[in-house]
């Protein structure tokens, strides 16, 4: 087991390295010249050279690459052009904000989605519940993330006035770490969190439903039913087995789910990594862009790693070698 975890960790590091390298190439090989951006900032010659050197933009592509990877490994992400401070200082608190929306939002979506999926999966085939369930899930799945956000804003913020429209706290709110524990924060968190959950829910529902429908005609379910256990117990057997394909399916889908979080952060002006990435792109803040992208990629890799380990726990057939 320990050997397996170590091997998977090693693989994850390799994947991060590969993603990082792709990103490196993307920024250097693409037609836009990053130095042009730097010069436009109206720096002195000396300051520009220093910045170029700081950023490892001197020397051959290979030299740059080595310097770049070296910096990353030392945890040195460089300085943000716009904020004029180390990237890490900018992004550090933003990661926390993003996780605040992403983790509970995705969990809520997954739990509600798979729960409803079991219900729809066990509904009579071709009946009302099944048809309505599938139809609604498919339609909601087709709603773009920003439309979910806009709709929530329109109803619960503009029309009903129940929730604030943007930001993470009221203007006079506490700025320290304790701010995350205030009611004011939760009030602001509610809508973005729900938006992420709604974005994530239909996919879960449909996958769980397919899994349950596939499983409910299996021989083992027939035997469980024959044993005379309660119906919820039977449903639980199918859900438990459908969870396995669900996990293998959902975690690759995370790469796409991040997209939902990015637009939700924008719509609700939620100060997270995704919003910062978009802002950095429009401001041509090249070190910040690179680092924000890097962080999002690392999140996916970590989630994938977690999924693999959870899968191993859930499926007795997996043997760790």
């Amino acid at each position, binding site marked *: 087991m320990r050997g397996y975890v170590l091997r998977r960790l090693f693989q994850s590091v390799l994947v991060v390295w590969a993603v990082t390298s792709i990103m490196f190439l993307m920024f250097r090989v693409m037609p836009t010249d990053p130095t042009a951006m730097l010069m436009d900032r109206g720096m002195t010659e000396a300051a520009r050279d220093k910045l170029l050197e700081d950023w490892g933009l001197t020397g051959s592509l290979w030299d740059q690459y080595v310097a770049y990877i070296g910096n990353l490994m030392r945890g040195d992400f460089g300085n943000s052009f716009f904020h004029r401070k180390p990237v890490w200082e900018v992004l550090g608190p933003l990661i926390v904000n993003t996780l605040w929306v992403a983790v509970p939002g995705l969990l809520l979506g997954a739990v509600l989605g798979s729960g409803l999926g079991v219900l729809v999966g066990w509904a*009579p085939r071709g009946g009302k519940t099944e048809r309505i369930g599938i139809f609604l899930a498919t339609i909601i799945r087709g709603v773009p993330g920003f439309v979910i956000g806009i709709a929530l804003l329109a109803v619960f913020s503009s029309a009903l006035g129940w929730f604030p429209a943007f930001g993470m706290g009221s203007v006079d709110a506490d700025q320290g770490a304790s701010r995350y524990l205030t009611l004011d924060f939760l009030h602001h968190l509610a809508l973005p969190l729900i938006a992420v959950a709604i974005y994530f829910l239909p996919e879960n529902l449909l996958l769980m439903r397919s899994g349950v429908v596939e499983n409910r005609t299996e021989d083992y379910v027939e035997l469980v039913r024959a044993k005379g256990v309660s119906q919820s117990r039977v449903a639980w057997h199918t859900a*438990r087995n459908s969870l396995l394909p669900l996990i293998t399916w959902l975690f690759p889908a995370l790469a796409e789910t991040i997209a939902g979080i990015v637009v939700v952060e924008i719509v609700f002006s939620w100060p997270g990594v995704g919003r910062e990435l978009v802002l950095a792109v429009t401001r041509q803040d090249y070190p910040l862009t690179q680092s924000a992208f890097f962080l999002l990629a690392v999140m996916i890799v970590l989630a994938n790693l977690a999924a693999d380990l959870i899968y191993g726990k859930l*499926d*007795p057939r997996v043997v760790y070698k």
Partner: protein
Amino acid sequence: MGALAKLNERLRAKPAAHMLVERLSIAYQTPRGPFRAVDDVSFEVAAGATLGLVGESGCGKSTVVKSLMGLLPEGTSVSGRALLNGTDILGLSERALSDVRWTKIALITQSAMNSLDPVYCIGDQITESILAHERVSKAVAWARAEQMFEIVGLPGSRLTEFPHQFSGGMRQRAVIAMALSLNAGLLLADEPTTALDPIMQDQIMSRIRSIHADMRRSMILVTHDIAVVAETCETIAVMYAGEVVEAGPTAQVLQNPRHPYTMGLQNAFPKLPVRGQSRMPLISIPGTVPNLLHPPVGCRFAGRCPFATDLCRSEAPAKLSNSISQSAACHYQDRASEFRAIAQKASTWRHKDG
């Protein structure tokens, strides 16, 4: 007295069940109309007796089992009665069924990999059935499961293992152990050895026979193998295209079959040669089973029967009712001995092909 001993005593006190099936008809709903999988089937299993339900694929034998367990897909139309100790168990609600399932009827399914839930250990799956019906602690249920494992010849220590760690034969034993766990009055064994190799098949069937001899539960053995029935069951019911075509005491039916289908089945059944004896050729039954979406008007076997007449093709013979003596659903039962002699010749069955 320990809790386990109390449980064992309570379960041991259960009587063997009596099962009377009368005029059972089952039709699956398909987009192309009702599929009459079972048509007017009647049979009886006396308390402590074994009935062999034999037939080829698609004859409806497994559908009968499913209907008795309440496992038919929703929307399937069922008519007739299935009296378990005098109470009709057809068409019960899920709630009412849970009092019948496993406590009164237990099921031995075939041992394909899928008959056990892959993500739970075998012990959990056996105790699940005990805990669903008996108010005992988990430890007592587990101890009972260990005893059941012993009966089927598996070490109790392997209860903690998962289905994929078991061989096909061991899985089959585990399924049998599960079926025995509440000492139900009636055991339904649905093709219990089909997926296994010959030696394992034989060992499992021997095990089932000895368990039956010890516990005297009533049993319905569903199989396509007439020889397995010959070795295991007191009475036999031969099914063809959704109907029982011949029934009676096993030895009588197999030695002096009265229905041409039973005769054909015997001819087609491969046998081991006996040294010094010439042996019968293997003869197949020509033609194919009728489509049960549109069953023929007359006798369903008429299309393949070498003795069929116009009467057979226009009018269905009377359905078999419950009777202890041998009977066949054939217009020409009285000419059975004459048919038997001709049926042994290969040329008899060669007149048509399909």
